């Protein structure tokens, strides 16, 4: 693309591919080629991923999974903490309850001798006195009474071969006496065990019966006591008791058997929920004492702690999840914003590239599609857009073949940039073609152009160099409307053709221009150019012209190489102004 081409003498055998300057435009027979076409396509293609990115953000997975994760994690941690707190509470309650029940058991155990000792003593006394009723009654009397005494009744029995015989009674008649068979079985059991026997007497007035059999030699005496139980087995503990904070149930035996219930403070038995029990051995039987706490023994704070942990944990979890969701929403919003900003930036880049491409395409469309072929000379031209320029520039060149021996070399520069400058340039360029076709000489052409453009209405002025080249006669007639002079190079020396410089086109109408004619030496090269080639800020244009002259006479090479070298050497890494350059060379 953009290959340099030779538009010149047939002697050269047609177009010859030559090195070219990438950013520039080289003329070919098929017309101007934009070197920016490929980058423009790349830029357009580069914009596509930008269009997909925001869509990916919008259509992506549900964005609140992390918030849900935070909630689940928080609730799981809360659950574990609640379980730990609850189990700690429960185990502490159990430990405290066990301590309390063992304390209570110890108290009960301490009370047992007050039952056993009087009966054992009474039995031993009876044995020693041969069953003296009087001594029995006087001994046991203090232990029997309605309130505060150990027994409601105590009686002395003799175990003979015909069964137990009631010998004496202190207090109310014993309930057991009503059923001799049962008494016989009970006393036999007590005698065999040789220790305190205990039995529960059911009935409307339940009683607990105790029997102690003397292991004496003269026969078996039994001291038998009864103490009443509450009729409904229910009794609350005294308010000053250290166990008022407990529910309790006391059973005879080693099991919580309702038929063996002695006393409780509850209506519904057995005790359910958290409870503790202890068994106190007593005589030939035992008591089972079961307690549960009326209130949390550790206090209500310990009881409520798991709930508090649960509530606070749930609140914190939900709060954290909510916060996470909000942060996610903000981040998504920021991403969307960034995506759209990026899209706008991409769009701007694309538009910029497009605009630049449009400007360059238009510029190139306004440049000649081909250069005239005239025997005896080579012709070539270059156009370089200023770097970073978006607007179309106003520089142009033209080589117009008048007949088979003459051509018009034109280089012009419309002030300013943009479409209006380009329109002025096009108007001037086409007008020059029209006047050239009428065989007008350069001075007349420029004078006619001065009537076409007015700076007051168009805002533009244009400098134009118009040179009529008679190839055969080697004569160059130069006319300048405010334009830089052309350079004639021959035999290693360069000469600027200074003609009288008239005002630029657009300053005023009907200007009379003066032409200057010079003869071209053999193999001379004529270069016309716009100020972009020589002008530098902060430097005299004379310095720029000298630099051009030195560069142009420096090396051998054909016209194409010369123009390429001038563009690359003088513009360096690119000037900010447009540059047009057109040249021709006599081949002999």
């Amino acid at each position: 693309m953009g290959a340099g081409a030779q538009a010149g003498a047939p002697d050269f055998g047609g177009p010859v591919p030559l090195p070219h300057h990438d950013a520039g435009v080289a003329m070919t027979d098929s017309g101007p080629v934009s070197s920016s076409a490929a980058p423009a396509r790349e830029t357009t293609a580069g914009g596509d991923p930008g269009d997909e990115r925001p869509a990916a953000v919008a259509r992506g997975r549900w964005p609140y999974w992390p918030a849900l994760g935070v909630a689940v994690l928080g609730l799981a941690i809360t659950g574990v903490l609640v379980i730990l707190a609850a189990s700690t509470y429960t185990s502490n309650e159990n430990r405290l309850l066990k301590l309390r029940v063992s304390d209570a058991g110890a108290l009960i155990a301490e009370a047992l001798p007050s039952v056993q000792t009087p009966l054992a003593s009474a039995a031993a006394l009876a044995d020693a006195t041969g069953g003296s009723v009087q001594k029995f009654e006087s001994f046991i009397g203090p232990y029997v009474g309605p309130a505060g005494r150990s027994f409601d009744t105590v009686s002395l029995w003799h175990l003979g071969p015909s069964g137990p015989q009631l010998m004496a009674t202190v207090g109310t008649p014993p309930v057991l006496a009503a059923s001799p068979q049962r008494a016989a079985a009970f006393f036999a059991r007590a005698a065999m065990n040789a220790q305190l026997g205990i039995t529960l007497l059911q009935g409307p007035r339940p009683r607990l019966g105790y029997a102690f059999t003397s292991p004496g030699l003269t026969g078996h005496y039994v001291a038998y006591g009864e103490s009443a139980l509450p009729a409904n087995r229910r009794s609350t503990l005294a308010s000053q008791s250290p166990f008022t904070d407990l529910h309790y149930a006391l059973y005879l035996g080693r099991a919580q058997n309702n038929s063996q219930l002695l006393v409780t403070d509850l209506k519904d038995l057995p005790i359910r929920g958290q409870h503790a029990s202890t068994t106190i051995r007593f005589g030939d039987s035992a008591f089972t004492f079961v307690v549960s706490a009326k209130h949390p023994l550790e206090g209500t704070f310990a009881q409520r702690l798991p709930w508090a942990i649960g509530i606070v944990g749930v609140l914190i979890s939900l709060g954290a999840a909510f916060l996470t969701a909000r942060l996610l929403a903000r981040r998504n919003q920021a991403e969307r914003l960034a995506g759209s900003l990026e899209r706008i930036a991409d769009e701007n880049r694309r538009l910029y590239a497009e605009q630049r491409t449009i400007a360059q395409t238009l510029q190139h469309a306004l440049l000649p599609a081909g250069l005239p072929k005239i025997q005896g000379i080579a012709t070539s031209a270059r156009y370089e857009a200023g770097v970073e320029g978006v607007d179309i520039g106003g520089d142009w060149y033209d080589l117009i073949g008048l007949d088979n021996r003459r051509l018009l070399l034109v280089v012009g520069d419309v002030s300013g940039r943009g479409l209006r400058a380009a329109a002025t340039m096009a108007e001037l360029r086409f007008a020059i073609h029209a006047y050239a076709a009428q065989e007008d000489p350069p001075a007349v052409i420029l004078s006619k152009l001065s009537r076409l453009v007015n700076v007051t209405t168009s805002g533009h002025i244009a400098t134009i160099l118009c040179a009529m080249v008679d190839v055969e006669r080697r004569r160059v007639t130069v006319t300048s409307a405010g334009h830089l002079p052309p350079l004639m190079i021959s035999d290693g020396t360069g000469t600027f053709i200074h003609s009288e410089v008239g005002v630029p086109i657009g300053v005023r109408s009907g200007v009379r221009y003066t032409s200057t004619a010079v003869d071209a030496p053999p193999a001379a090269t004529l270069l016309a150019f716009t100020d972009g080639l020589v002008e530098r800020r902060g430097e005299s244009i004379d310095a720029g012209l000298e630099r051009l002259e030195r560069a142009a006479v420096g090396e051998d090479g054909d016209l194409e190489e010369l123009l390429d070298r001038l563009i690359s050497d003088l513009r360096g890494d690119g000037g900010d102004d447009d540059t047009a350059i057109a040249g021709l060379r006599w081949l002999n």
Partner: protein
Amino acid sequence: MAELGANHDQAMTFDVAEGGDHTVTVRLAGELDITNIDALASGVAPALERGPQRMVVDVSGLRFADSSAIALWVRWAGVVPEIELRDVPPLLRRVVESMGLAETLNVTP
């Protein structure tokens, strides 16, 4: 004073003064080019609408002027009966002369 331009190096300042003798004096400094020419044109336009007889463009502080700047001065020259480009630095003077505009813009040293 108005300061324009993308960076300090390329900043352009201008100052418009209207005298009692129907003279508009425009003082320019910095670098004047296509990027800031519109600001200058619109900044001076109100003074020109009042139909001054004379215009003095003091360019002593101008380091650079491109073709669009010169086109603007030429435009002013077409509107005001008498114009003077005053205190023209040598480099700018050479540019104006090379364009054949020394007379049109009435360049004075």
